[in-house]
């Protein structure tokens, strides 16, 4: 979230699309109700199902799963055609005025630069036109045909209300009604927020769905505003924190890149990752990249990391190729992995295409599951009747199952979706011999370190050099680690303006990332968490919930990253002169001498507006990118592409170009393409979702939750039920190209059948909470049905749109 949970109450219009906050995030959703009751805000829900969020909305519209870019592209077209955008915001805070290379083009669904053999784009033509000094050319009037605003207009001109209706199934009047409500929020004193979740991320074009919304929020001038922003409602209680710690092959903590085989040394790595300034006066925050990286290396390798050995850069493993979960299971399926660890992760249930996951796990030599619960993954080898039909004697994998503790037995910090880090205390010990995840990792590490102590074996050096200063080496304490994550001085940290002045003494906790250095004098495990445990103590444990501004900022409750800032890009909540767009919702303002207000300014506090430093300081040009010159695999503007399994033969926007039917830059492994179903065999679209009574595959182990939703079911609309001869309560079999499940049919008015491109399309709704372990009645894992393909950027699997058939069991 750019904003945070309580801030939802400051919105005038709340759009829920690609999510269902009332059921998946109930206690956060109450802030939407707060906005409705106390601000008169309107709530709009767009979803394939009439969800419980929709049930309390002011307006609901149905949509075909996977077609959100068509809908939102239609909104962009509406806003630009009807002059419903904040022109000053767009002119000064986005790249709308920038000119794009003459060689850039978009024709018949494809951008310039496509390499058909590799299914990927070269983005050379997606760049700014630049003068001899390297500064981009701009057209402040935004009229030149190659300026971003004109390109945007052109790009979405075909997303007419008629086309929206044909592709999405949303009735034209409903679409226009919503577009009009959104357009109202282009007024400086009207703000919209968007609440989305996995309903947007779990598509082969998920990232671009979110980007389409980001473009809308920028056109409206809603990013940086209280009650605005782009708000991803994340799935797990600490999924934000673990993302921040970047447990991804391709990243290091704090969203730093992992070194790859393309960067043989630290100098090459830093040169490749540190952006060059684009505009002279612009604050370009990533210019500090070397400070963040060297401080991380110091946290990892401690005194062993020195300037002479490039701070241990060689010890850090260099990645080769993709390391996302689909890539990992593909490698495993090919027999290239020998060992695998699942820490609080149940991939047999939560990675797409269960059959492939099970086959892959059976090729391992050893599997280690660390979990509080008996997961399906830990018993992938065990026969559980029709739900897991395997022969144990044929599975040669050695499986270890280690009991881990649950939240109630842990101390340490969690980061909520609004980036607020909060400290937690344990209430009991884990049952039996259970241990914490940190202790289990430390036990494995110290054991291996001892086994490598005699210098035998492969490359023992990084194991021996890893900084392990914890009082009990087999069990580091949460406090010790939290302090390392936040950062401390390894030598005196001097003021660059006056080297006689010491800003932090050796051994002291650092107050924030401004104190990080690239000379080895600071260690910091995650630069965006810097300052969370300062000399003042553990700021994550603060519990002062006072809210003097009334905006719900509660600046002394916990600690928000970065720098305790609650609303990101908040400089953009003011106009160019530094005056808030809406004084009643002042986040910060320029008082003539400094930026002050109700949040930590997202700009240097003493930079006057006259210096025209742009608010988007993480981009070197200081403005937000309506046109993405880099970072997006399938193009600088979002395009509607069909899901990989679609009821349509062709993309209605490009009916004659088969290459533009699906995301051209998506990755499909050999063999997985043959596992995609066709509409002739699997005529209905299906989507998966959560129920309010359950959380993922966990709460089926909790008897209270199991009582409230004991048995697996699927939801179908009345017209499909009639067509297929299925009655309410009948047992049905739902099949995809990859397998089948059986469940009770719930026939409901909540799911409508929609007219898509001239044909009637039915939707099958599949709640995902059942499996063959738990205290509910046993059920099938829903990912038995789902396809093995992900978003081109994130590789998040396409759980939300696929094809099935349904029949009476």
């Amino acid at each position, binding site marked *: 979230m750019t904003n945070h949970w309580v801030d939802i109450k400051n919105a005038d219009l709340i759009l829920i699309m690609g999510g269902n906050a009332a059921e998946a995030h109930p206690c956060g959703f109450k802030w939407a109700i707060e906005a409705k009751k106390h601000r008169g805000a309107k709530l709009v829900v767009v979803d394939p199902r009439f969800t419980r969020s929709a049930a309390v909305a002011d307006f609901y519209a149905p949509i075909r799963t996977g077609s959100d870019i068509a809908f939102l592209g239609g909104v962009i077209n509406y806003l630009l055609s009807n002059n419903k955008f904040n022109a000053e915001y767009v002119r000064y805070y986005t790249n709308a005025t920038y000119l794009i290379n003459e060689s850039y083009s978009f024709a018949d669904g494809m951008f310039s630069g496509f390499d058909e053999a590799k299914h990927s784009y070269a983005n050379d033509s997606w760049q700014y036109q630049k003068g001899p000094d390297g500064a981009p050319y701009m057209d402040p009037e935004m009229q030149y045909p190659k300026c971003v605003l004109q390109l945007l207009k052109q790009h979405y001109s075909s997303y007419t209300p008629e086309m929206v209706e044909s592709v999405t199934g949303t009735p034209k009047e409903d679409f226009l009604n919503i577009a009009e409500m959104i357009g109202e929020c282009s007024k400086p004193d009207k703000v919209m927020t968007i609440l989305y979740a996995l309903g947007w991320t779990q598509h082969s074009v998920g990232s671009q769905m979110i980007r389409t919304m980001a473009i809308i929020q920028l056109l409206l001038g809603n990013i940086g505003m209280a009650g605005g922003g782009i708000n991803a409602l994340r799935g797990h*209680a600490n999924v934000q*924190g673990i993302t921040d710690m970047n447990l991804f092959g391709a990243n290091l903590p704090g969203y730093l890149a992992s070194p790859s085989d393309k960067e043989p040394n630290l100098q090459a790595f830093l040169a490749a990752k540190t952006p060059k300034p684009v505009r002279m006066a612009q604050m370009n925050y990533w210019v500090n990249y070397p400070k963040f990286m060297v401080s991380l290396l110091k946290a990892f390798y401690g005194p062993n990391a020195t300037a002479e050995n490039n701070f241990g850069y060689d010890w850090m493993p260099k990645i080769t190729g993709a390391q996302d979960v689909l890539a990992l299971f593909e490698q495993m399926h090919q027999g290239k992995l020998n060992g695998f660890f699942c820490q609080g992760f149940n991939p047999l249930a939560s990675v797409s295409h269960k059959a492939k996951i099970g086959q892959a796990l059976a090729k391992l030599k050893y599997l280690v599951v660390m979990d509080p619960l008996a997961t399906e993954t830990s018993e992938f080898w065990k026969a559980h009747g029709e739900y897991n039909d395997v022969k144990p004697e044929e599975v040669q994998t050695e499986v270890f199952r280690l009991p881990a503790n649950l939240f109630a037995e842990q101390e340490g910090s969690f980061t909520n979706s609004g980036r607020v880090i909060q400290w*937690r205390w344990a209430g009991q010990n884990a049952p039996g011999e259970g241990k914490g995840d940190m202790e289990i990792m430390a036990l494995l590490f110290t054991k291996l370190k001892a*086994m490598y102590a005699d210098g035998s074996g492969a490359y023992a050096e990084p194991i021996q050099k890893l900084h392990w200063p914890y009082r009990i080496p087999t069990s580091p304490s949460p406090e010790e680690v939290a302090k390392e994550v936040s950062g401390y001085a390894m030598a005196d940290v001097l003021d660059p303006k006056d080297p006689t002045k010491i800003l932090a003494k050796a051994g002291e906790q650092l107050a924030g990332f401004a104190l990080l250095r690239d000379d080895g004098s600071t260690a910091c495990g995650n630069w965006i968490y810097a300052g969370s445990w300062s000399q003042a103590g553990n700021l994550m444990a603060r519990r002062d919930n006072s809210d003097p501004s009334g905006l719900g900022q509660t600046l002394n409750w916990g600690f928000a990253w970065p720098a305790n800032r609650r609303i990101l890009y908040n400089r953009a909540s003011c106009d160019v002169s530094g005056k808030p767009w809406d004084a009643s919702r002042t986040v910060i303002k320029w008082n003539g001498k400094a930026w002050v207000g109700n949040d930590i300014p997202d700009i240097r506090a003493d930079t006057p507006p006259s210096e025209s430093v742009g608010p988007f300081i993480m981009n070197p040009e200081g403005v937000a990118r309506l046109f993405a010159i880099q970072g997006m695999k399938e193009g600088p503007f979002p395009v509607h592409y069909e899901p990989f399994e679609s009821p349509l033969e062709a993309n209605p926007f490009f009916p004659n170009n088969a290459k533009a039917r699906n995301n051209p830059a998506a990755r499909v492994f050999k063999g997985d393409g043959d596992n995609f179903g066709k509409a002739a065999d699997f005529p209905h679209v299906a989507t998966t979702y959560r129920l309010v009574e359950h959380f993922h595959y966990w709460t089926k182990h909790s008897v209270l939750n199991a009582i409230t939703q004991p048995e697996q079911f699927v939801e179908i609309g009345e017209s499909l039920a009639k067509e297929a001869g299925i009655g309410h309560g009948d047992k049905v079999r739902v099949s995809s190209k990859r397998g089948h499940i059986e469940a009770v049919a719930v026939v409901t008015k909540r799911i409508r059948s929609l007219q898509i491109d001239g044909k009637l399309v039915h939707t099958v709704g599949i709640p995902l909470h059942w499996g063959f372990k738990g205290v509910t009645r046993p059920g099938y894992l829903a990912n038995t049905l789902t396809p093995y393909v992900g978003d081109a950027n994130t590789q998040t699997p396409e759980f939300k749109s696929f094809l099935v058939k349904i029949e009476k069991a």
Partner: protein
Amino acid sequence: MSQTMTRRQFFKVTAGGFAGAGLGALGLTPEALQAATRPFKLERTSEARNICPYCSVSCGVLMYSIGDKAKNVEASIIHIEGDPDNPVNRGTLCPKGAGLLEMIHSENRLKFPEVREAGSSEWKRISWDEAITRIATHMKADRDANFKTTNEAGVTVNHWPTVGFLASSAASNEAGYISHKVLRGLGVIGIDTQARI
């Protein structure tokens, strides 16, 4: 919050044998006085603040456990409710969070390290020492056999390509960081987390 008494202050004032006087001091009705004389079930518990582990609203919870903290006495949580001081959930919990207590005490909690030997159809209980030793032995054998110091082009890579690790998104930030540090320390590159999904 500073103007009014917090719920926990209220509990303190009304706790135990002073219930009558406490409530009287608060100016409540005699009916409430009578109703409060039954010993309050959380009276002898310890309170710990935590966060619901389900969705990312991360609701504050108050957990009440019994056990007098003496050596060999295990604390056990007997009640969980929303933390009214938490600015996000303000004391509420949803239908998922309402079952937290039953989750903690689920019969499906793992209690001991176990192994399922190759080809076997049963679990076997083992000690932590045996589990860690056997896993570390597998890891070392695989790492020694497959660790790469350079790639085909001669560039230093120093990685271990035949292992993968999926990290928990229900672990604390500190556990996540330590996991990351250990994995990179060993040369692991095949790392992913629930966050992607």
